[in-house]
């Protein structure tokens, strides 16, 4: 065992490295905020001021003038909620079946699901776009939500989770005459809460931040998501960085807030996917 003095010595070095690293991680975000509250004139000054001379909040208003931010925010919320709810329900159903029920072709179906995981998303994009076109769903909420409701990853993750659960409770329920639907809903889902939380968090993060599909599917500014809207904002205010920073910060703040509030669960969820995958 190292002596007490020795340990404090090591910890001091560890803190030094970690603090420098943390600065690199946080400085860009801090700079984003500081720029967003500077006037345009101040933002282009050389050398740059660190803290704004006058706190200019008008850039946030300009974001709302440049793009329909309120609509885009709502679209993003609904897309995220729809995809997450859909995945939690449907993935957990499929995962329960794969983990616990016996049916012909189960392993073949599972392999088919897994194969989807291996394929880069670009291979789905063109036909997905055409399906939306044929359904008349381009530039609408269903286009943002529906394809993202089905997830091979979510099914796989939850199946692994279900496999790790003890069987006694479902067996007892089965003896009481419960059918698989009741067992799934009343026994399995409550037990699977940590797994569902992990999947839910990941789906929220991915949906909120998704860019390529929303960019392709919805190009009417009113129907866009925030991530695609940022690209539009950039087109309109190419060099007005205070406005661009205000928009970027507004777009990303909700998930950052969710993360900070639920940090323990998020980090546990991420660690969980790492150990189960």
């Amino acid at each position, binding site marked *: 065992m190292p002596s007490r003095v020795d*340990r404090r010595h090591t*910890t001091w070095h560890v*803190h030094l490295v*970690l603090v420098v690293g*943390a600065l690199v*991680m946080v400085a*860009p*975000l801090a*700079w*984003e905020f500081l720029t967003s509250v500077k006037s345009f004139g101040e933002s282009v000054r*050389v050398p*740059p001021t660190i803290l704004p001379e006058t706190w200019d909040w008008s850039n946030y208003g300009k974001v709302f003038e440049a793009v329909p931010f309120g609509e885009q925010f709502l679209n993003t919320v609904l897309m995220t909620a729809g995809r997450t709810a859909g995945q939690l329900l*449907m993935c957990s*159903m*499929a995962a329960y*079946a794969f983990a*616990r*029920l016996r*049916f012909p072709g*189960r392993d073949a179906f599972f392999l088919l*699901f897994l*194969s*989807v995981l*291996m394929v*880069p998303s670009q*291979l*789905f994009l*063109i*036909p*997905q*776009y055409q399906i939306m076109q044929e359904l008349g769903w381009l530039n609408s909420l269903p286009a943002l939500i529906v*394809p993202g409701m*089905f997830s091979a990853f979510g*099914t796989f993750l939850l199946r692994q989770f279900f496999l790790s659960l003890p069987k006694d409770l479902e*067996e007892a329920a089965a003896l009481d005459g419960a*059918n698989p639907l009741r067992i799934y809903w009343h026994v399995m889902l409550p037990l699977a809460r940590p797994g569902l939380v992990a999947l839910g968090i990941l789906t929220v*993060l991915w949906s*909120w931040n998704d*860019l*390529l599909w929303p960019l392709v599917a919805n190009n009417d500014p009113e129907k866009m998501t925030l*991530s695609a809207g*940022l*690209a*539009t904002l*950039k*087109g309109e205010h*190419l060099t007005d*960085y205070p406005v*661009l920073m205000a928009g*970027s*910060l507004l*777009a*990303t703040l909700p998930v*950052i807030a969710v*993360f900070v509030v639920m*940090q323990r669960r*998020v980090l546990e969820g*991420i*660690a969980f996917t*790492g150990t189960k995958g």
Partner: protein
Amino acid sequence: MTAVADQSVAAEVPAATGRPARKRRPTTVAGRWEWLWGLAFIAPTGLGLLVFYIWPVFQTLYYSFTEWGAFGGHVWVGTENYVKLLGDPEVLKALKNTLVYSGLVLLGVPVSLVLAALINTPGLRGAAVYRVLYFLPVVTMPAAVGMVWRWLYNGDLGLVNHVLSLIGISGQHWVADPRFALYATAVVGVWMTVGYNMVIFAAGLNGIPRDYYEAAELDGAGRIRQFFSITLPMLSPTAFFITVLTSIGALQVFDVIYLMLGTNSSALRNPAIDENKTIVFLFYERAFIDNDKGYAAAIAFVLLLVILVLTVIQFRAQKRWVHYA
């Protein structure tokens, strides 16, 4: 495993129902309609995957052998797209850029391992705070990340060049200069992934039994030595998992390239983009800007091939360095 379950059910039947244990098939918790329940449970996700994911792969494969006219019609051209692609300098350049970018982002993996080891230092104060701070870039929207770093990298006004000037280095137009743009975006790629990989590494570290370290300490091994002879081998499966996932993700990079180098308007075109397109960026341009969907489909299949080959190589190579306990 099923045998154990059988016994427990059989043993409990009389007690639970008061009836004598019948010789039925006790493993089928769901009764004789179990197969129907199973199919019904996988149907929603299964059908969704079929319509939106599995069938589209074959559709895209078909498109990769077609050429698209200006009004959406397409004709079969055989392997023409693939032949053209192999001699297309833009595709080859995008391929090279994608590989360089991914290689650079992978350099972040050892960094995140070291950070995880530091954060897991026993009794370290503020470990939870560090974890949150390092994870912030992971949850930040990539589109916003691209925007912020474009500003940080700005040649005349950016914070990066200002900081460099303080230590006497004259800065560059990082994202507007074709020579630097790819490296500048790769730095952002590392910045975005380090926290995620760190958390997974930290979880792996927690799985290493403490007594290994105690035994090593008794043998007089220092912390550095312990890291190389216990931590590293015990963590190699996690490192392998992270390496595979990080490279698959990096090979599909789009968001930061699009936001930092691309422009959706013709207002001001970044001169660096032509030299620094990645495969997915090129795919997006061909498929949805130029409406050259046949060629785009072929490009997407080249990416699939690259990912498959690199993943197979990684799985082959793991035998040499991954240690499964």
